[in-house]
């Protein structure tokens, strides 16, 4: 900060005052800032302030080999990294015309859905914590750790897996993994009523969350809202079903929707998606033994791999919404341009700013967490 910022200046005669939420604030998700102008406890205007997590991913990727980039793609969204690497791989496969073996596709689905459950468990604890209830956070994160254990066994990494490579996945499942997945899912399913009792049917929580940060379906379409936040307004849209990738068109699952579009609806949609993800994983676990075969297709020497020129736009459904990569190759061994479109780029900036207007300071953090905004996606 410059010295002139500390110099005496005439203060505005306004009765409003300014309050910063973030970057160092428990009411903000990650390293992000939301600057508020308030009167009393009423927000006059909010302004998102990002860039604290900016690393220049897109620039970095232009300087690295196609295969090297795999290592940094998951870092773009920390709580839910798997869709990042999957969609990047999908983009490269699309550019090269690689056909991924079916077993690998099913493995990817399993990984994606486990990641979705983990992300949802993570966020609803955070959502509860913004309203002052910390127990769900403790429980949820401890239960999420069980999924991370599965990841560790499956991929070798707890948070960042780099399990996918263009053309398939790195390695096959260890022995008896399906059983352990089933056990964990059984346990999680047995926990869900506890969460319902503690949080989702807790009258105080319902009271706080209902009517908080409402988005109508019209607004949602206008503002580019995607994912669970869109489904919470009653629109039955899911990239997995409507623009299917991998083998999602062969899977049976519901798309949960809720009508009101407020924080409560968003939390409920996520809660019900956990159930659906469990259902998907069970199908995958049942299906996998029937799918023998390779887990990746042959690819050229990855250290000297010239991907054919062209461009592609691949979309997947992450736990937060629509995630897309626009990848351009000029035929070289490095991407010419990559552009990632994270769902939070809408949710954490424009939607948040819109919803904050006229809401109360109690609800700002709750709105942010109920939107499940992920700041590193904004910053990249």
């Amino acid at each position, binding site marked *: 900060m410059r010295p002139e910022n500390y110099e005496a200046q005439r203060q505005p005669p306004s009765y409003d005052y300014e309050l910063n939420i973030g970057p160092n604030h428990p009411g903000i998700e990650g390293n992000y800032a939301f600057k508020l102008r308030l009167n009393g406890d009423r927000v006059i205007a909010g302004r*998102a*302030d*990002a*860039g604290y997590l*900016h690393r*220049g991913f*897109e*620039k*970095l990727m232009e*300087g690295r080999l196609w295969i090297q980039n795999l290592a940094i793609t998951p870092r773009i969204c920390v709580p839910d990294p798997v869709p990042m690497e999957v969609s990047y791989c999908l983009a490269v496969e699309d550019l090269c015309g690689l056909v991924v073996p079916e077993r690998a596709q099913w493995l990817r689905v399993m990984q994606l859905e486990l990641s979705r459950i983990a992300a949802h468990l993570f966020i609803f604890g955070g959502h509860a914590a913004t309203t002052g209830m910390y127990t769900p956070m403790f429980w949820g994160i401890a239960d999420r750790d069980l999924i991370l254990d599965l990841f560790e066994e499956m991929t070798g990494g707890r948070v960042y897996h780099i399990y996918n490579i263009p053309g398939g996945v790195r390695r096959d499942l260890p022995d008896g993994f399906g059983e352990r997945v089933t056990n964990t899912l059984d346990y999680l399913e047995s926990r869900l009523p506890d969460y319902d009792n503690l949080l989702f049917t807790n009258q105080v929580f319902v009271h706080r969350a209902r009517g908080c940060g409402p988005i109508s379906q019209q607004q949602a*379409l*206008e*503002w*580019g809202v*995607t994912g669970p936040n869109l489904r919470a307004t009653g*629109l039955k*849209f899911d990239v997995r079903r*409507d*623009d299917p990738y991998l083998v999602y068109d062969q899977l049976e699952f519901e798309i949960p929707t809720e009508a009101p579009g407020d924080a409560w609806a968003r939390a409920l949609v996520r809660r019900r998606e956990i159930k659906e993800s469990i259902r998907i994983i069970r199908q995958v676990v049942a299906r996998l033994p029937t799918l023998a075969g390779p887990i990746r297709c042959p690819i050229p020497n990855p250290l000297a791999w010239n991907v054919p020129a062209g*461009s*592609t*736009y691949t*979309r997947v459904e992450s736990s937060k919404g*629509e995630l*897309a990569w*626009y990848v*351009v190759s000029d035929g070289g061994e490095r991407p*010419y*341009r990559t*552009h990632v*479109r994270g769902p939070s*780029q*809408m949710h954490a*900036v*424009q939607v948040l700013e819109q919803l904050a207007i006229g809401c109360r300071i109690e609800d700002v953090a709750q709105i942010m967490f109920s939107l499940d905004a992920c700041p590193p996606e*904004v*910053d990249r």
Partner: protein
Amino acid sequence: MTNELTTWLDTLLAELDGIEVRRTSRRRLRVEVASDALPALLELLRGRASFVHLSAISCVDWIDAGQFELVYHCWSYEIQSLVSVHTRIPREPGVYISVYDIYTPAAFFERDIHEMFGVWFEGSPDLSRFILTEWDGPPPMRKDFDSEAWVNQHFGWQDYHPDWLKDLEARGGGIAVPPNEQRFSRRTVDET
């Protein structure tokens, strides 16, 4: 039903002059259009063909051709198709028209592109700095910005061979990577 709509879209786009349409897959369409016709096309897509969702605007810096390529990815919930509209504008002066009045989300993407590439969008509601508020270098995503040179100029590198590590290495321990084997460290050049 979706198929009928897809066919309808194809016929709609085929009627238009001055654009080049290519269907890359069942749900993907690539459209090339001249820069002055793009807003009209987007207006048409949104208004007539229900492409209400602007998924993203991507910018590519074709430095050799002296052009920026802007790609507008639009999705229709009804037709279930994604149209990527490509257009090119000259790199200098890098000024274009905002589509904010057609798509609200464009505000974010245009702000982002302005920040990263320095493209000015006429009519965009807010092109103030967002991510790089405290940055005073050139727009970093341009191809002519050399990130590594910037890094070497501004940041110090961790000393990989402090004295206490040399002792350890002399006794056969430590993580000895000779400076000339450090592949990605630019310090290797001026290592004494």
